[in-house]
C-alpha cells in the first residue's frame, strides 16, 4: 500500500507501469486519474487546500478498508495539493486484485470515499474572481451504496 500527498506533479504512466509490475497472483489492475476540468474555458487555476496529518490518516484508513473489503493485493493513492492548471492531473488511484470485479469496485469505493471523506478543499480562480467548490449531494449519496 502506498499513499502519497504532494504538491509536485506525478508521472501517471510511470506510476501505473510500476504498480502493474510483478503481481503474479493479481490478475487485474485498475487505475483512475482525476484531471482539472475547465468546462467553459474561464478557469485560470484551481488551488487545493488540505489538512496535513489528517489527510494522510484518512487516505491510509480508506485504502486499508478497500484492501480488506475487496481483497486487494495492493493499493496506490496519490493526491496533489496547491495550485493546478486546467488539464493537470489532480490525483490517481490504482488497485490490484486477483479478478477485475474487485479491482474495479475497490477503485470506485476508494474514489467515493476520497471525494467526500478526505480533507481536501478546492478553490477555483477565474477572470471573475475566486470561489470555493461546493460539495455535491450526489457525492455524499454515492457513499450510500457501500
Amino acid at each position, binding site marked *: 500500500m502506498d499513499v502519497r500527498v504532494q504538491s509536485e506533479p506525478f508521472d501517471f504512466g510511470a506510476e501505473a507501469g510500476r504498480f502493474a509490475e510483478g503481481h503474479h497472483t493479481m490478475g487485474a489492475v485498475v487505475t483512475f486519474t*482525476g484531471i482539472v476540468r475547465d468546462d467553459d474555458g474561464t478557469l485560470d487555476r484551481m488551488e*487545493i*487546500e*488540505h*489538512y496535513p*496529518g*489528517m489527510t494522510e*490518516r*484518512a487516505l491510509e484508513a480508506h485504502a486499508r478498508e478497500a484492501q480488506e473489503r475487496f481483497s486487494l493485493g495492493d493499493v496506490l493513492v496519490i*493526491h496533489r495539493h496547491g495550485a493546478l492548471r486546467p488539464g493537470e492531473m*489532480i*490525483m490517481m488511484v490504482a488497485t490490484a486484485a486477483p479478478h477485475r470485479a474487485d479491482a474495479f469496485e475497490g477503485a470506485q469505493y476508494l*474514489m467515493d470515499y*476520497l*471525494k*467526500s*471523506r*478526505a*480533507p*481536501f*478543499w*478546492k*478553490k477555483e480562480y477565474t477572470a471573475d474572481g475566486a470561489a*470555493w*467548490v*461546493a*460539495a455535491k449531494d450526489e457525492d*455524499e449519496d454515492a457513499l450510500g451504496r457501500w
Partner: protein
Amino acid sequence: MQILYFAWVRERIGEARETVETEATTVTELIEELRARDPRYAAAFADLSALRVALDQDLSDFDAPLDGVREVAFFPPMTGG
C-alpha cells in the same frame, strides 16, 4: 486546545489556527463560546449544516465530548478527488 480552520472557514475567521483556553465540554459548547467572541466567528459558524468537525484528526459530531481532545478542526464539506 488547538483550533484549526480550513477553506472558507479559515477565510471568514482570518486565522488558520489558534490556541484557546476553554471550559467547553462538547463541540457545540465550544462553538457557542467562539460565536460570542466576535462577528467573524458568528459569520463562520452561522450555519452548522455547512460545517464539519474533526477531533484529533478524526471526523466527528457536534455533540461529541471534548474530554482529552487536543486538536479541533472546523471546515466545510470536503471536495477532494
